[in-house]
């Protein structure tokens, strides 16, 4: 039984249909890839699932409860967490304080509990400079802080929006291992990625979006050979 089920989602921005009649589900312990060319609606899907944006039509069920109308902070507390494509650290906090925010409000920790929860996550993600301010952190550390804040909410569903973008190869592998370790904790993970190496390595199943609609889904190896997918990425053959 899926932990998250989105059915017939529609979202428009003015005249533009960003997501059109989209249905998909996520399972515990499964990593779902969401891929597609620029402007396909990948980030919008995350925004809709996490409640950052509202849907125009359709329903979202999380653990068999309808959360379509729930605000973002409610969904986060219930167990849907996300990261942002362009990292959005809280700039007047240190690394560990950023993660504490997730534990305090997403999970509902008390102040002293939140610090130790955040420290545990720092250990898990191998964040060493826990007391540095975010403006002193490297790109990789910022990405980890972003992931850490989402994890601190103790989510059951986790959306990662291009978390590998801008990292070196070694750094990418480090994060891939981390995400795989999260999968073992039975979290349902959904990754939006442009780097196909990552998608191939990480995902159990992918959905390919184009112009807000699913044009293909299945294991990466199969999908990557699909003609429609190749056309969406490279353009139609004349």
């Amino acid at each position, binding site marked *: 039984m899926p932990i998250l089920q989105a059915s017939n989602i529609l979202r428009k921005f003015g005249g533009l249909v960003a997501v059109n009649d989209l249905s998909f589900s996520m399972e515990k312990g499964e990593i779902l890839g969401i891929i597609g060319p620029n402007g396909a609606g990948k980030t919008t899907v995350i925004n809709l699932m996490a409640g*950052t944006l509202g849907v125009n039509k359709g329903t979202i069920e999380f653990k068999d409860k309808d959360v379509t109308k729930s605000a973002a902070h409610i969904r986060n507390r219930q167990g849907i967490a996300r990261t942002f494509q362009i990292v*959005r650290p809280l700039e007047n*906090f240190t690394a560990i304080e950023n993660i504490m*925010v997730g534990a*305090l*409000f*997403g999970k509902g920790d008390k*102040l002293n509990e939140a610090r130790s929860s955040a420290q545990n996550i720092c250990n898990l993600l191998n964040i060493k400079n826990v007391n540095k301010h975010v403006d002193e952190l490297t790109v990789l550390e910022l990405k980890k802080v972003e992931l850490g804040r*989402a994890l601190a909410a103790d989510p059951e569903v986790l959306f990662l929006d291009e978390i590998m973008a801008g990292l070196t190869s070694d750094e990418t592998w480090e994060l891939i291992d981390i995400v795989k370790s999260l999968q073992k904790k039975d979290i349902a993970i959904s990754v939006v990625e442009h780097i196909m190496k990552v998608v191939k390595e990480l995902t159990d199943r992918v959905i390919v979006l184009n112009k807000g609609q699913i044009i293909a889904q299945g294991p990466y190896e199969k999908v990557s050979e699909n003609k429609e997918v190749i056309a969406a990425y490279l353009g139609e053959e004349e």
Partner: protein
Amino acid sequence: MRKNLIILLLIVIALTLPLYTGVYILHIFSSILIFLALSLSWDMMLRTGQLSFGTAGFFGLGAYASVLIVVNMGFNPILSLLIGAIFSGFIAFILGFIVLRLREIYFAITTLALTHVFSVIIRNFSDFTGGASGKILASAIFEGDPVKIYYLVLIVAGLAIIISEVFKRSRIHYAINAIRNDETTAKSSGIDVFKYLLFVFVSTSALQGLVGAVYAHQYAFVNPESTFSLNFLLLPIAMALVGGIYSTNGPIIGALLLGLISEYLKLIMPYGHLIVYGLIIVFVVLFLPRGIYSTIHNKLLKSNIIGGDKNANTASK
């Protein structure tokens, strides 16, 4: 350790001041403490990222509520101070549902407009409020005893300091700092943004109402012109900017410094003191944009003279 000693010393001085000073000095400090409390209350709202220009408005509402309930209904003056606080908080609660949907300059302008709206409404309900000429109390609170008034004001300022520190040391600090930083991140981290904004708006407005009520009972009158004076907005802002925003110490230092300087300047140049006062503010904002407290604190931190105080360091970021 040294820091605690300084705080203890200041508390002792504040508590024993009436033993060795006269009425004039007590009066000056009562007035400084009033502005100190307002400055802190303004800063606490600013920590959420919302620039409120409604300080004078809620100050005035509290003043009016507490005076009117004494004059018109014969309430106990001390009790009426609480009524002033509750009334301002209640109005803030209702208006909060509308104005807290606004952000940035729109929030600022709307809260400024509210101040004016409050005073216009009061001016026009002349049967109950005394209209443009206001209302006069039969006597100032405690029959105008300056020592008792000083202690009353000290309690209110102490309350403001305690609330500010509670804000800094609890989960409220994390919530409102996150909201100021990035509302979208705050929401996706489980923070109920509106609830926290409303909570801070109501509690700071109630505090402003309490200060207004105390001020009105100290001078035994209210009228729309002087009770809703923009002095009760601009001076607290100046104090917080000079001392350093987003902290408890900043507004305290700013209020003491500007309060004492302006009093001294009044003596040596009765009409020119406002010019010098203005120049100080311009100088601080231009050259010490983090305020005096944060600038000095960071310098000391860098030279390792004092130990790390994480909150203060965070605040200055």
